[in-house]
Each structure stands twice: as C-alpha cells, then as structure tokens.
C-alpha cells in the first residue's frame, strides 16, 4: 500500500454514449499532471472500473473520493456509499441542507482503506466560478457580464428536491456577484422551464449554461431543440442563435469546462488534502486564475 493519498473520481458514465466519461478522464488527467496524488483513478456507475471494484485498483491507504455529480441526492447518499462499501455511512454525517455537504471519513469494507468521502463537485462554491468561466469560454469574452443575462439550467425532478437546490444555489451566488445584468435558474422538467428562456430575460444577449457533467442526450439534443435553437439537433445551430429577438449563447454541459478539475481538487482540499500548489496550478492553467467570485 502506498502511504501517499490517492484521488478517486466517481462519475455516472454510460452504456450508450462514449462521450459521457470523457470529462471525467480529462479532469483526472489534469489533476494527475499536478502530481498532487499518488494515483488518480476514474470510477463509474455504468462503466469500468465499477464503483464496486474501484478501490481494489488503488494502492494508497488513504483515498479522497469525489463524486462528479451535480447535486446531493440518490447517487451521493445511497449508491456511491453502498457500492464503495463505505462502512457506517449515514447521510447525516454530511449534516447538509442539500447543498452544504463537505466530507465524512469512513473505512471501506472492501479494502480497509480510509476514505474521505466528499460532497459532490456540483454543489461546491467554486462551481459558480466554473459556470462563469463557461460563459467566458462560450462568448470568448473574459469580461462577459454587462449587457448579458445568464441562465443556469438544471434537469429538475420532482423525485429529488436537492436537484433544483443546487441550480438555484449557484444562480443566487452568481447573481450576488453583480456581474451579469440578470441571472435565472431554469429547468428541463419543472418550472420555470428552459423552453421559455426568452420570457425570463430582458437582456438581448443570454448565455445558457446547463449544469450537467457531460454532454449527451439532454445537453446536445433536448435543450437546444426545446429552446428553439434548431428544429432538429442534427442540423446543428449557431452560437449565438437568434431566438425571439434574443441572442442565445448556448454553452453545453458545464462539466466539460477544464476548470472543473479545480472543483474536484477543492473538494479534496476541504476534506484535508494538502493541495494549495495543485489548485493554484490548475486555476492558472484552466482559466480560473482570477476567481470570478472575488471573495
């Protein structure tokens, strides 16, 4: 066993879409290059290594486990702890209101490793910076904000109230930055719906950032068609596209933004990993050197 800690990134993956795991691999590679961990391992619900077997592939005695998921809920509270065999887990250990989970330290029943189980990447405060960075990337304007509206889009589901909480949390935080003229949280499956995006903005230019980890069916097909960027996603669309007199700058999944690697590190750092140098390096390299939060 290696005495230096390892990082395991737990993501959903897909049986159908090869690109689902691509952001996980990309962020893992970015973090691996910093040398901050003895190992960086990707693990998936739908791909391999599976959650069930990931820890036995990791040599380290101590593991930081970061879920690359958007919100707290079924996956972070039930599936990941169960499949990683985190003995003694109880969601109460996070003492979270739905967006405030930090970490809990447990022992893996499979391997005996010490696992610092972190809250999901999507609810970390620095995720707000990634959303802003995404807006910068898609407009190719580092000063984007004035004259622009920002829509943070989530899936939304009546089965899990935390799903919407994460979206609203970041919309509130970014609104508090006074950077964009308007900020709204919109959803696919509940009100207010992304279909009516132009109803919610007075700004002529609107950046739309879906809070999804990977580009796939929803971000590449559903949302562009629902917003009226195109009749059929296969026809493609321009960025920006004019919809009802608004220029819609559609950003695609926020999880593909390189700065996401920083959020994963911040999660591990909050759980006690010594990562100051690695975080500075990643922020410098992936466009987040000057945190948009300013705090």
């Amino acid at each position, binding site marked *: *066993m290696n005495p230096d800690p390892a990082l395991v990134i737990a993501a959903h993956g*897909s049986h*159908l879409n090869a690109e689902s795991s691509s952001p996980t691999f990309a962020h893992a590679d970015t973090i691996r290059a910093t040398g901050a961990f003895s190992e960086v391992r990707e693990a998936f619900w739908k*791909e*391999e*290594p599976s959650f069930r*077997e990931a820890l*036995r592939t990791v040599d380290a005695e101590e593991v930081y486990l970061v879920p690359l998921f958007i919100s707290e809920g*079924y996956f972070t509270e039930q599936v990941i702890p169960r499949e990683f065999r985190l003995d003694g887990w109880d969601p109460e250990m996070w003492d979270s209101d739905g967006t405030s989970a930090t970490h809990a330290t447990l022992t893996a029943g499979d391997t005996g490793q010490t696992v610092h189980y972190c809250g999901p990447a999507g609810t970390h405060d620095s995720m707000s910076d990634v959303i802003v960075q995404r807006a910068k990337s898609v407009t190719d304007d580092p000063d984007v904000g004035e004259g622009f509206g920002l829509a943070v889009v989530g899936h939304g589901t009546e089965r899990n109230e935390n799903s919407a909480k994460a979206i609203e949390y970041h919309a509130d935080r970014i609104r508090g930055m006074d950077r964009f003229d308007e900020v709204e949280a919109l959803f696919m499956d509940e009100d207010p719906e992304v279909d009516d995006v132009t109803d919610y903005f007075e700004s002529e230019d609107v950046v739309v950032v879906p809070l999804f980890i990977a580009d796939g069916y929803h971000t590449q097909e559903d949302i562009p068609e629902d917003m009226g960027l195109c009749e059929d996603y296969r026809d493609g669309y321009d960025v920006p596209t004019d919809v009802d007199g608004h220029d819609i700058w559609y950003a695609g999944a926020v999880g593909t933004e390189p700065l996401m690697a920083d959020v994963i590190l911040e999660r591990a750092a909050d759980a006690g990993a010594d990562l100051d140098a690695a975080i500075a390096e990643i922020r410098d390299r992936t466009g987040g050197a000057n945190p948009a939060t300013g705090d």
Partner: protein
Amino acid sequence: MDEDPVDALVATAPDGIAFDGLTVDREDDRYAFETPAESHDSLDEADLRSVAADSPYVSNWYFWHAVAPQTDHRWAFLRWLEGADDRGFDDRYDALAGGLTTEWGQLRITASLDESGGRSYALRHVDDADDADSALESYDDSLAARDIAKHDDDGGYRPLKTAPSLQTGWQFPALGPAELVDAVHAVYPATVPNWYREREGELDVTHWHETVERQTGIYGVVKTWDRGDGHEHVDWVAEACCDDSQCLKRREWQYDEDTELAVDGGDGAFPCREPCSLVITAARKWTKLEAEEPQTYEFELTPSEKEQVEEIIDAVADGRTADIREADIYDGANRYRTRFLRAKLFDDDGNLCGVETDDE
C-alpha cells in the same frame, strides 16, 4: 530507484538475501554469495562488489525489489507474465532475451530484458501478433490505452471493457513495469487485482441473488424477478451475456452460494466476481418483459419462412449479420431475403402476417 544494484545489494546483505536462486549473507564483515552458477565464501566488500557486478541474478533481484511496483497484485502479475513460479532462472532469462510472450484476454504482452537487466514490456492486440511495428500506431503513454479500449474496429462504443471486441492496429513498444500494469488496467479494469485475489484464494464473489437484493432506484424492480421458483431465468441471463463470445471474463458468480447456474462460466483468464452493470441493466428490462402473460397468436408461415425467422434470430444473437455477403441469398438472415420476408408478411403497421400484437 536509480540506485546502483550492487550498492543496493551491499546495503541489503546484512539482512540476508534469498531470491530467484541468489543467496547473499553477511557474517562478521565477510560475505557469502551464491547462485546456481557460482558460490563464494568469505568475500570482503570489494570482492562481493566484483562478483555481483556482472551477475544477472543481482540485476534480477534489484529489478524485482526496487524497480517493479511492490503492490502485491501488480508484482505477482509481472512475475506471472514471465512464468517466474515455474520456470528456472536460466530458462526464463533465455526466453526473456528473445521476448517472452503471454496473452491476457485480447492483449499480447511481451517481456524482454532491457540493457540494465530490468524489464521492458511490449503490448499489442493478439490479432496483431505478426504485424510489423511500422504497420501499427505506436503509443508510449499508458493512459492512451483508455481511448483504445473505448471503441471497436468499426468505431462502435464498447461499454463492456471485457467484450472480445478490442480494436486492433496499435502497440506500446516499450513500457516500464508500472506503466504496463496501468495500460492493462485501462483496457481491462480491475482484472489484475481480482485475478490476484483468486490466486490467493481470497476472491470475493457476490452471487446473483445477493447482487439483485442490494439494487435500489430503477433497478430495484429486478428483485421481483427472484420469486424463489428456480433459476432458469438467471441461466438465460448468463447464456445471453456471460458467454465467452460476449465477455472474456470467466463467470464465477452463481445463483447463490448453494445454487450453481446450469450454464458454463467460460474460459477467460480473469474472474468475474459479480453481475456487472450491463447484466443488471439488461435484467431490469427482462424483468419487465417477463412479467407479461403469454398470448396465443395464429398466423401462417411456410416451413422455410419459419426456419428463416430462426436463422435471423441466430444471426443477430451471434453478431453475424455484418458477415453475411450481400448476394448470399442462401443465408436466411441475408438482407435481401429478410427484406423479401418483410415485404411479403408485414402489413403497413409492421405486424407479422397482419396479426396485431395486442388482441384488445
């Protein structure tokens, strides 16, 4: 790690060394050095250094204790690759000089001695065994194996890493020992630690019933398929998904600890210790489909048409459709034959012989 092997040997000698035919001991500042090829007593340090300097037994010891990864499963796998448990040293070194090749699933791994007496590993697809290096795309970063494992030769996505559809046309000509295991892990995740656990008699197998019992969310429905009325349905699942033609893992899980499935688990080198996510996802679909009540449908087929339907199902189930020649009208699953059957027997709504699926 880049310490001189002889320095390392001298430093370790007080603890005694006995490895792969090499024995070194120290007593009262004098050393004993023995290999099957030579034996020396009462050496001073300078003599020991002189004897050890050119000994392949020393560079071999150094490789296995200072260069190769020391994690049990990685170390054991690398030893297994060169048959260290059952090949004598000379025989092994002769083989390594010319390249000692082992297969791991569809991987072909060739271990060779490098200039310093350590190891270098070449990795490629078993089907590319005889291809010239220049005919293959070369990689040196073991992480590139992740992308290689993602798609098959036709560009199709491979959700199951152990499906026997690993793409060809690539090679890693010279990986170090740690990198080799990393590349193997990228192609066949967790196979090395599970193989090692099995070898040590410690493989943890989670059987079907137990795996199904822990499912929640949309997969929780699979539990309803386990009604304590035998395991024929699980045999069908295993026959559909876990056959050697579909997955290179050897299925070790059974219905439960006391109840073996009726179908063979396959011959793969690496063990499968529980139903995977693809099997559970498929089982969820079958759980729903198997809840339907059978109906009686009446329609007429000629004997050849019935046989053709059977041939079509066989061809699709075996993934053979792409191999059927375009003009091979003699094959029941030929595309023109199938289109003719559809033209003759389907109505505008796609109903076989015009018989609706629901009788309401």
